[in-house]
């Protein structure tokens, strides 16, 4: 009995540690005090103010554009890379696997610094121009998320019956059709989770963004600001804009909704299969 109570307390303690900061943040999004910890009375004012804050809106727009484009590019490259590597000879495949795993464990600062040096070098000696722009930022984010796409697609390929592709060829599909109609649908869950992972990695990335960004996107002639660089830039001079609390609350709620939707979808899909299986059992 005592053991059980301690177990319960332990679980709740962990959950509180995990969620309390977010809950406090959410609570403080309903008061307009500049300094966190002050309570100026309940108000919704921060929410309309958020959408009028041009700085934040531009940064949000940039962040979303970069997240989606880099996720698309890295999903495309990572998936085709994983498929290609899967059909390589075993020894070569192992080395490709290893090479793609190193960036995952590698410190991000190493990657950021080396990309910066690469771009400076290329700009000075090859292109004779200043390279830093949206494109260098995009390359940076693709390099960051590509290995994660690769490792989320790879297990799906390994789980797949290796003769599926041959079966499609056997039934008259050209290699292209076989990949499109059999291979891709089969590994789609892996591709999707790779895509989502790439988006989240890009959304809150600071180090690579700070090192590889240039001018462009919604900032026009100025340096591209994303949410993370904006916050970092602001807190150097003044407190974090109060509207940020509203923005993070919205982001958190969006994520909660997304997770609930995915769980519900899985639950109903599982139930659907189960009823089929039960039907079969009752028939026998």
């Amino acid at each position, binding site marked *: 009995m005592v053991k059980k109570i301690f177990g319960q307390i332990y679980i709740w303690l962990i959950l509180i540690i995990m969620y309390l900061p977010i809950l406090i943040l959410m609570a403080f999004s309903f008061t307009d005090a500049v300094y966190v910890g002050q309570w100026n009375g309940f108000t919704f004012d921060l929410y309309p103010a958020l959408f009028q804050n041009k700085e934040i809106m531009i940064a949000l727009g940039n962040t979303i554009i970069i997240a989606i484009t880099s996720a698309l590019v890295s999903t495309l490259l990572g998936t085709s890379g994983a498929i290609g590597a899967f059909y390589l000879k075993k020894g070569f495949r192992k080395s490709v696997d290893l090479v793609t795993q190193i960036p995952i464990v590698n410190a991000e600062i190493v990657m950021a610094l080396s990309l910066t040096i690469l771009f400076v070098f290329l700009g000075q000696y090859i292109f004779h121009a200043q390279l830093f722009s949206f494109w260098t930022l995009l390359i940076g984010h693709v390099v960051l998320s590509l290995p994660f796409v690769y490792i989320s697609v790879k297990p799906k390929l390994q789980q797949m019956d290796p003769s599926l592709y041959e079966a499609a060829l*056997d039934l008259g*599909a050209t290699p292209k059709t076989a990949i499109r109609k059999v291979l891709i649908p089969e590994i789609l869950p892996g591709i999707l989770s790779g895509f989502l992972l790439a988006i989240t990695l890009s959304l809150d990335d600071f180090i690579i963004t700070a090192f590889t960004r240039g001018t462009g996107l919604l900032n026009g002639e100025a340096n591209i600001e994303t949410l993370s660089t904006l916050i970092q830039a602001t807190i150097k001079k003044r407190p974090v804009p109060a509207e940020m609390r509203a923005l993070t609350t919205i982001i958190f709620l969006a994520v909660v909704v997304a997770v609930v939707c995915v769980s519900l979808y899985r639950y109903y899909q599982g139930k659907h299969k189960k009823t*089929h299986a039960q039907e079969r059992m009752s028939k026998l």
Partner: protein
Amino acid sequence: MEENNKIISLSHVSKVYDGVTVVDDFNLDITKGEFVTFLGPSGCGKTTTLRMIAGFETPSEGSILLNGNDITKLPPYKRPVNTVFQRYALFPHLDVYDNVAFGLKLKKVPVTYTTKKGITKTKLKHLSSKVIDEKVARALKIVDLEELEDRDISTLSGGQQQRVAIARAIVNEPEILLLDEPLGALDLKMRKEMQLELKAMHDKLGITFIYVTHDQEEALTMSDTIVVMKAGQIQQVGTPKDIYNEPNNAYVANFIGESNIYNATMMKKKVVRFLGANFNCVDDFPVNEKVDVVIRPEDVELKRIGKDGNITAEIKEKYKEKLIGIVDSKVFKGIHFEYIVLKGKNEIVVQDTKEFNVGDVVLINIGPNEIHIMKKELTTNVFTDAYIDKNNKLIISDCTFDCELTQLLSDSHLDENGYLIGPDNKKYDLKDADVFVEIGLSDIEILDHNPNEDENIGEIISIVYKGDHYQYLIRTKEEEDFVCDSDYAFNENDIVSINVLPKNIKLTLKGSITKYEVE
């Protein structure tokens, strides 16, 4: 057989992977409508051959003709053949209907139509969904799955998945259906049912089936023709009956059903000697030729002539020149008993409906028609009942040879007391160890016998001139036969000495070396 009845012919087909020859000079013609089975143990190249017919592999050498057209390099999606895969390879994201319709939806057929201006044109069009519906329904009916069209693949049982895989292949109306061990994943009862159903399907569809299996019973049950394979080579092609009753060699006999196989020698015209007795037989082989004989367990007749394992002098006298054995074990198998009868060190497996007891002395009778004699591929002398004596010498019947015991264990050496010392300093005493011995034909040296020396001697029984050398058959007093190639001429009935250099004697230990370990 008429030429144009051939649907597919493989000529001199070989496949080499990374220097390993998996299929070696494979030649086969398959007649339209035949049920052909490639039979062999795993790794014999049967699946690789099938994959070359399907187009998943390209032969390293040779060509494959389909209806007389070379399809050796044609990709799989352009071949009128379909495959049923070992693990079905159904598409999990599609339901039963879409799996079966997969090939049909990709298919394009030429359609002739007339334009408004009255010009007749032909273009390739996909099949209409009505046609696809009908064809899928028909295929599912053939495999007895009409009601499961909308079901997810994951909700089907193994047997049902198997049927979907067959329907998915036959719906395309292939000229040849390839089946790669399709029943391997099913349980025994299901497998037996599917065997009969597949056979019935073959009769109904009238297309050629090429079936790959390692299960000899499956092959015998279903096939019109069986191709027995070993190490990438065809051992025998024939009807199930031929292969069972007239195996080409000991390998085929052993693979197809249980059998007793013995080394034998032709004594006279249509008389063969094995297990120390002479038997009449129907096959005519040259006298003194070394042959293999195969006897099916159900073809051996037993008669009780004594009991308690006691072969009395009286029995010996009465049944001189006959084969006498002692029942060593007895197992009830339902329809019959299975006995192992011992004659000296040799085992004879016998199936009989009559009951005998362990220890019974039996007269073993084998009818001339039941003795299948096969040409022996003589490449080496093989001795299966040799042993090592206390002086580390090799004893083959009445002959004694020096041999290299260190070859039995890698990195080993002999110590001064004659013990074999392993790499981990373990000590082995190989006295009385049973070994399997191979000696090459040209590794046996024969010399004139010197009566003053203690030598291994034998009598030359036969001489065959092989173009540039002679091949001698030498028989020792204890009736052990050595075959050897030599450049020197001897005469029949010469007594000669037999010598083999220790390094030319290849030894293999029977059983594990661990049982000879000493403290």
